[in-house]
């Protein structure tokens, strides 16, 4: 009798186990179905396409205003010429006056710095800070999210007035500026906010793009706010971070001559 009870008890446990297993399998299958990586990879492609200008050049004036945590503010005004189809850009500094004519030229994978006073070029990394602000040289480049990242998770969230898809991304190429990233993509496939992380998961930068400007049927950021989490200072009870505001004005999609993206042009124009 006792043995029979024990047997029944075991059967019951087994049954519960099987039911629990089936339930979790169903739930897991449902989750797997709700996160379809290829769908979100597609979304990344759409994001890249919305910001890429492949059939002409982009010209604009960038005003980069940096405020140190609890300290001084500084401003750099520069002109940017960009040719996404060939992965080229040219940045010419207009202000401050002492830096007038300094240039950054990206041709393919090479980024050159030019100092008109020394009439000298040197080579640098695209990941370097631009004029020591939180803006990086790589931020002048077009978006390559679909190429450099794969989505790990996705969820629908609200960001102020925007309904967004929050994507968690992981770098898949060594060209990626950051190993991990979170992006908030609004329904018009524009990235509204970005959080960039190190490999260990520490937050490095937060970028907000609160406004875009439409030129024809193309979108360009109109303003960006960058918080650099690595540059901080405790002021009273509050931790302040370096904050850089980028205002992009006078955009133009007029085609430019090929010679613009050459060292010779840079030498000639920036005397």
């Amino acid at each position, binding site marked *: 009798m006792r043995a029979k009870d024990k047997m029944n008890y075991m059967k019951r446990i087994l049954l519960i186990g099987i039911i629990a297993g089936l339930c979790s399998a169903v739930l897991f299958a449902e989750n797997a179905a709700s996160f379809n990586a290829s769908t979100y990879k597609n979304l990344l492609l759409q994001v890249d396409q919305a910001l890429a200008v492949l059939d002409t050049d982009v010209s604009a004036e960038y005003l980069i205003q940096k405020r140190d945590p609890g300290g*001084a503010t500084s401003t750099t005004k520069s002109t940017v010429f960009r040719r996404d189809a060939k992965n080229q850009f040219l940045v010419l500094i207009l202000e*401050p006056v002492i*830096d007038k*004519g300094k240039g950054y030229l990206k041709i393919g994978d090479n980024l050159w710095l030019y100092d008109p006073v*020394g009439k000298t070029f040197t080579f640098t990394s695209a990941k370097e800070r631009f004029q020591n602000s939180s803006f990086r040289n790589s931020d002048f480049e077009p978006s390559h999210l679909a190429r450099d990242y794969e989505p790990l998770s996705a969820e629908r969230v609200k960001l102020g007035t925007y309904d967004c898809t929050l994507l968690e991304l992981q770098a898949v190429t060594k060209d990626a500026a950051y190993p991990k990233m979170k992006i908030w993509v609004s329904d018009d496939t524009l990235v509204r906010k970005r959080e960039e992380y190190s490999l260990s998961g520490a937050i490095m930068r*937060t970028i907000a793009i609160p406004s875009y400007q439409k030129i024809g049927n193309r979108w360009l950021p109109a303003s960006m706010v960058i918080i650099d989490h690595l540059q901080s200072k405790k002021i009273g009870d509050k931790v302040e971070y370096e904050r850089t*505001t980028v205002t992009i004005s006078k955009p133009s999609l007029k085609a430019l001559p090929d010679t*613009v993206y050459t060292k010779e042009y840079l030498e000639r124009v920036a005397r």
Partner: protein
Amino acid sequence: MKILQLAFRNLWRHPQRTLFISSLVVIGSLFITMATAILDGATKGLETSLVGSLTGHLTLAAPTEEAYGLFGSEIPIVSDYEGIPAIDEGKRIFPLLGEIPGVSAYTSIVSCIASVSLSGFTQKSVVFGIDPATYFSVLSDIEILWGDPGELNRGGIFLNERWAKQAETQLKRPPAKGDSVVAAVASRGTFRLRTFYVAGVYRYKAPSDTLDRVVLADPTLVRSLVNYTLGNGSLATEAGLDNRADTSSGSIDDLFAVNQDIESSSTPGISLQSVESTLQDTKQRDSLVAVDHAAWSFILIRKDEHASIHKVKSALEKVLKKNNVQIRILDWYTAAGSNALMLFALKAAFNVGVLFLVLGSLMMLINSLVISVLERTGEIGTLRALGAKRFFIIRLIVMEILVMSLGSAGIGIIITKVLLHTISSVGIVLKNPLLIGLFGGALLRPQLELSFVCMFFIGILLASLVASIYPIYLALSISPREAIHEGEG
């Protein structure tokens, strides 16, 4: 003489104890003298390599709150390079230096840390803009391997031999005369690039990791690189500081409260022509970047061979004070920076260790002498009963302790001398780059100075006298009657 004989006899009566204490003193002396010899050798090596190659005996620098040497700030910098402030009063200082007795030569340099590239080889280097007419007479341990130093006033750069060899390993060819060298400095939110040409190669007499990073260059170009310019005073202009910057500090998510997207098709875009015309006018910039030819980072002073460095320094201080010149005077080790200072810190730590060792030994010596006196209570009492005066007893005990301690210390020093003679003939070969930098060369030759030996014996003498106070007190408190009574019992 009789006292000496008695002291020897007393020590001989307890050979085990005498041998034990003597061995301790011998080992202690050996340790202290060997370590001092090694550290002195290292200091001498570092001094020889740095004074004759890098710093001179004394260095003058602009007065600032922050400590810095020839290589810049001693505070580790994480992101941005802080330049070295220029000496403003160079023109007033140079004539004064000629008046100071003991100063044999002086020169001035501009110093900066830059990323220096030769073809595909890039290395973070210390760039010294020098005056070739005077630099090599102050720093006489620098040997020119090839090239005309005069070209250092015409855009040239002299690479040091090791720098050139590192470049050669990567480029698969030695640097040649006329090769372009680009130096880049990133500082205060901007960058500056200057091109030099290879004009020669030089060698340091005692190369080290510190010296290997140095290259010598045209001072005007280095001034321009380090921003010793007429516009340097205007910080706001340089870094682009102004009041246009956004000062809002609200939450970043607040920026999305309303849709701010705009249609830009109506506004005129920027044109290539407008940018080109803006860049054509460079008058204001050119006036700001004009080099201040009188600006120097440091003045290096070499003293006469026989002049005392302290006397020269004090004369210099007096003359500068009299003429109301605000300047900072650095000793060679302060100017050389952390490497030299680390050695001095090591010496200070060692001296503290020695102090503890001496105190321990002293306690042991006192203890052993007290036991020795207590064992000889009867003998001392009998001597007193036979008419020996107090002074005789004092002399006897002091003599015993001096014979033992000075004798053992002497043996320790003789062993050290023998060991050092063997070591010094070949030297201690250092392979660790950190130690090479710290000790100023790859070959360390320890040396025992006569002055240290004298000081050491004086120290032992004083310690022995201190150690004998309590045993003497004990010995003198023994009364002859009690001692004889104790002996009978």
